[in-house]
């Protein structure tokens, strides 16, 4: 019951984000929707995912988006015209995805393929092989160490790219000021 109510909140917030004419409001509501998703993840017993969603989605990305809006002048108005072809494409895609879920195995059934593959090995052997109580950490840092290395390189590269794009301009502006 609670999840349905939270999903309703999420849907209302998503529609409000699309309809808001003010970028600051949109960013604020995006932070709210992340927070509601974090609650939903928590209800699904995924504490680590909820933690990440609250820290990254509701926290740092909202902060960074606000500071990015501060760097560019925030736009206030936008045409309220409905783009019918885009709406049709979005509805079609959503409908196809919803149709696709009909073929998925039932939610949380114990004989689902996802529970038959490596998950059992992780759950049963982590304590013996790694000795870490939190299985998520063991999977992220040890069993899937390569993936996390990839992630961290992505974060590093993205930061490098932003600094190359924005940091350089700053230097030139300073030179212009000096002249």
């Amino acid at each position, binding site marked *: 019951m609670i999840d349905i109510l939270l999903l309703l909140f999420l849907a209302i917030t998503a529609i409000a984000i699309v309809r808001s004419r003010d970028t600051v409001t949109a960013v604020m509501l995006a932070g709210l929707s992340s927070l509601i998703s974090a609650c939903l993840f928590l209800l699904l017993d995924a504490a680590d995912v909820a933690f990440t969603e609250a820290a990254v989605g509701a926290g740092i990305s909202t*902060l960074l988006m606000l500071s990015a809006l*501060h760097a560019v002048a925030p736009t206030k108005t936008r045409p309220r015209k409905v783009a019918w072809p885009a709406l049709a494409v979005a509805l079609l895609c959503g409908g196809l995805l919803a149709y696709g879920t009909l073929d998925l195995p039932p939610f949380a059934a114990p004989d689902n393929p996802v529970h038959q593959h490596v998950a059992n090995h992780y759950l049963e052997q982590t304590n013996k092989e790694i000795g870490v109580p939190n299985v998520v950490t063991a999977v992220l840092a040890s069993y899937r160490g390569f993936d996390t290395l990839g992630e*961290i390189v992505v974060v590093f590269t993205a*930061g490098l790219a932003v600094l190359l794009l924005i940091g350089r301009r*700053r230097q030139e502006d300073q030179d212009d000021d000096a002249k």
Partner: protein
Amino acid sequence: MKSHLILSIVAKFLIPLVLLFALYVQFHGDFGPGGGFQAGVIFAAAVILHLLVFGHAATERAIPTSILKVCAALGVLIYGGVGVAALLAGGNYLDYNVLASDPVAGQHLGILLVEAGVGLTVASVMTLLAYAFQQRGHNA
């Protein structure tokens, strides 16, 4: 908001606690929810609070950009270095079992180092981004 006395007092009190909480999340990740990524993000959030309340010059004096740039690369280097260390010790890349005398201790050491690398890189990159945007805003 430059002259908000209440805000700056509360921020002064709060920032060390947020940094402490970030360290708790970093090193408690083995036992509860959390880990390097989240800890880095919380650390960066604390720095951003400092940036918002005390301005860019004060934050730059506390944590200079040059150090952050080194730290961002250092985190990736630590992560990759653990992998190379495992190679040199006779295992596969990122196979922590060979890092210490017994496999479980090796895994503990490996996870600790790897999480430290992740936290360092994430915290530095996020702070650098906030600095960059803040400077652009002052310029505009």
